[in-house]
Every structure is written in structure tokens, then in C-alpha cells.
């Protein structure tokens, strides 16, 4: 069995989780502070990828990143890199689809944060950066970790946008999900089943992690 899809899936999921972790927290922190109208609009736009079919997200990404589309042309001319049909195309797809999970969970955590804690920090002369990393983040740890785990799981399972952006090139862009579909299509049921088992094992591990996090928070 060629393990490339597992490696590629994990690599894509890990990198996109890191991207989404920071951008999601950043967006959640700043958007919560904006005025109502802007917040409402941004909130809808940023959460859309969660409720849209991944193929729609993939379509929009292709309109942007395709070889003959604005960003695609720009990157090709300036850096000589192609943004579609490569392994890292999967990162774009997975990040966009997983972002809302991180963003929404982090925002929920921030909203339940007791602002008087931050205010008392300010009266003690602490900088906002210090307050963010040493007071706000530890207090919201559970929610933020959960968001990160969910984003990772979603990124790992991404199929629709990935198949449109990265295609299926064995040994290059193949992920677990695109491999399962490909094997099923070409009537290779035994191998498809093995990959399904691999996927089940990873997903179960992720859910177990979420449960352990929850138990830890209960114990507190």
C-alpha cells in the first residue's frame, strides 16, 4: 500500500490548521470589536464556507487561483508558481473550508470571556498584547483548542474543493479522501476499504481528543 495519500493529507491538514488557527483567532478577536453592521457582514462572509457545498468554495477559489485567473497569473508572472493542481493547492481548499470552524468557536469563546479581567489587567498597567496572550487566551483555552481540533478534522476530510483545485494526481496531489473516491470509481473496493479504515482511525482519534479536552474542562 502506497502511504503517500496519508502523508499528503496530514501535511495539508496540519499546515492549514496552523494557518486557520492564527487567522481564525485574529478574525474572531477583531471582528468581535467592530460595529454591528460591519460585524454582521463579515460574520456572514467568513462563515459562508461552512454552510456552502465545498464544490462552491472550490469554484470560487478556481476563479481566483486558476492558471488563467487574476491571482494565478500574478503568482505565475512574479514567482513562477502554479497555484492549482499541486499538493499545496489542497492547503488553500482546506484552509477556506476549515476557517469558519476555528473562527466561530474562537469567537464564541471570546464572547464568553469576562471582560472585567482584561480591564483589571489594564488598570495594572499591562499591555494589550500581554493581556491577550496571558489572560484572554488561557481563559479561552478550551474553546480555542476545540476549534483547532475541529478545523484539523475538517481539513483532513476535505474532498470537494480539494478535488477541484488539486485534482487527483497519484503521488502528488492525492489525499485520503480523493484516493477513496478514485479507488471506488475504478472498482478497487478492497483498497478503498483500507483507506476508509485509515480515515476512520484518524477521525476517531480526533473525536477522542475532543472528548478528553472536554473532560479536562469538567475536572476543573
Amino acid at each position, binding site marked *: 500500500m502506497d502511504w503517500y495519500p496519508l502523508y499528503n493529507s496530514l501535511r495539508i491538514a496540519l499546515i492549514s490548521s496552523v494557518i486557520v488557527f492564527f487567522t481564525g483567532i485574529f478574525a474572531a478577536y477583531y471582528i468581535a470589536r467592530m460595529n454591528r453592521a460591519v460585524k454582521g457582514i463579515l460574520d456572514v462572509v467568513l462563515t459562508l464556507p461552512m454552510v456552502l457545498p465545498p464544490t462552491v468554495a472550490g469554484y470560487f477559489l478556481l476563479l481566483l487561483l486558476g492558471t488563467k485567473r487574476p491571482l494565478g497569473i500574478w503568482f505565475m508572472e512574479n514567482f513562477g508558481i502554479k497555484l492549482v*493542481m499541486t499538493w499545496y493547492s489542497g492547503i488553500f481548499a482546506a484552509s477556506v473550508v476549515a476557517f469558519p470552524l476555528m473562527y466561530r468557536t474562537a469567537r464564541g469563546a471570546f464572547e464568553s470571556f469576562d471582560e472585567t479581567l482584561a480591564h483589571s489587567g489594564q488598570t495594572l498597567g499591562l499591555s494589550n498584547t500581554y493581556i491577550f496572550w496571558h489572560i484572554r487566551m488561557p481563559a479561552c483555552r478550551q474553546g480555542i483548542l476545540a476549534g483547532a481540533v475541529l478545523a484539523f478534522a475538517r481539513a483532513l476530510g476535505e474532498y470537494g474543493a480539494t478535488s477541484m483545485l488539486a485534482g487527483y494526481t497519484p503521488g502528488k496531489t492525492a489525499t485520503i479522501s480523493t484516493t477513496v473516491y478514485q479507488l*471506488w470509481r475504478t472498482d478497487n473496493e478492497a483498497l478503498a476499504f483500507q483507506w476508509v479504515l485509515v480515515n476512520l482511525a484518524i477521525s476517531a482519534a480526533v473525536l477522542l481528543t475532543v472528548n478528553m479536552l472536554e473532560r479536562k*474542562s469538567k475536572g476543573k
Partner: protein
Amino acid sequence: MKKLWAAVMAGVLAINILTGCPGSGTESKTAAGNMGDAASSETIQENDKIGLKATVGGTKDQPAELLIFAAASMTETMTEISAMYKDIRPDVEIIYTFDSSGTLKTQIEEGADCDIFISASQKQMNQLDISADPSINTEGLDFIQEGTRFNLVENKVVLAVPDGNPAGIEAYEDLGMDKLSLLCIGNEDVPVGAYSMEILTSLGILDQLESDSKLTYGSNVKEVTTQVKEASVDCGIIYATDAFSAGLTVADEADKDQCRQVIYPAAILKGSNNKEEAEKFLDYLTRNESRAVFEAAGFTMAQ
């Protein structure tokens, strides 16, 4: 905090499950099935209204519906022909499902309502035809109405390149060279994919391309065509007709030594409720009017 977390989890998981993406194959299967069901129940209702015995399918008095499953590469030509057919037979409504012949074959096998099947290769037709060699029709499927099957048109397998041919691919032989970085072909269950593999095998470069990860797979010929058109790949192996309708440049054409003839067989299905109308339409496909449409798109009529 705990409550909130639980709520977020539940909400997020629910949404995640809702938007989860099952194989698109299954989706289209159900879609096709539902379409068929809806169509038949409508006909039954209409019959009830005018007080007739509920028979599914059309007779001379009421509009008949023809469900046609055709290879994706016939999308443009068949749509044009059905528009012409509407002029001479306004009482017949033609409903197409275009997809790769492999997918269509699976849908028929799974019981999708279908009157006429036109495949881009003898293989999928044989797999449904009980009179075919049991080594091809391994499951002993019997879906094809005896005596209705014939060879409709012939296509060519070509190497298509995007505008300006960025990688400078001029012939099938170039596929073995370093200048190629990515070639898009159909899956092996897609006729054009099977033909592509035949060509690459005859050139002796299939294994090399696979181990260099230079092959990317599309699930039907239109997907391959789009990848080439969008210049996501250096080139793709598609049919002459698809290259023609997408306005793509053809770099090379497969000859008889590289690839067997690409014949599109057509047949009426055993399960059809409307064999008489289906036969009339198939007959129309061989007449001069249809012939002109097929030939304009790059098909030749099968002998």
C-alpha cells in the same frame, strides 16, 4: 463555559455533517433516479386526469418522454439534434443525462430509468449486453434490448493543448519528454481514459509517467477538457469533438496502431416503457439532418 462549548460542538458538528461531501457519483445516481421517478409519477397523474388506465410512458395521444443516457462527449451534438427533433415531433420530450459512459453504465445497472443508452465505447455497452462475451459482461447483466444495438458514430482520440501551448507539446511522442510536467487523462473506467492508457502503453511511457506523478485523472472527458482549457495542465487526451467544441488546439491525433477505433454504440434498454418512440429517435439519429450535426462537430458516421 461548558454549556457553551457543548452547544458550539453540537452546532458545528451538525453543520459539518450536513455539508459533508459524499462521492459525487452517488449524488448523481440518486438525482437521475429521482428524476426518473418524478417523471413517471407525473405521467401517471396526467393519465388519471383524463380518465385513462395508468400506463407509464406515452402513446399516440399524450406526450411521450424519452430518457436518454449519452456519453459526455455527445453533449453538444445530442442537444442540437433533440432541438431539431422537437420541430418534427413536438409531442416527444427528450431528457438527457450526460456523463462518462462508465458512470452511466453503473446508473443503468443500479436501476435508473432510461430508454436509450449511447456509450463512447463498446465496453460499457457490452457490460450490459447479455449477448456479449461473458469475459466482458462478467456479471451477466441483461439490460440491452435484443436487435436494437448498432454503431452510431466514430470519434478520434486527440492530444489537446491550452491556448499558446505553454509547454510546447507537439505530438504524443513528446509526452515522454521532460518538457511535460502534467498530463490530464480520464480515469480507466471512462472510455477516453481507457483509450488514453492504450496510447500511452503503445508508446511505452505509461509506467514512467505514473511513477513520475505526471498523470492527473479526470472523472469524465469534460473534466479533462476543462483542465486543459484552464491551462491547469500542460495537455490532455480527449476526443476530437470535445477539443472542437471547447475551441482547443489539437497537437496530435492517435492513429490506428496506437489506439483502436472509437465507436459509439447506441441501443434501447430492455426496461424502456417507450420502445416505439425510442426506435424512432434512434432512426432519426442516422438520417441526414443528424448526420450533418455529428459531422460538423468532428464525428464521422460509423460504418
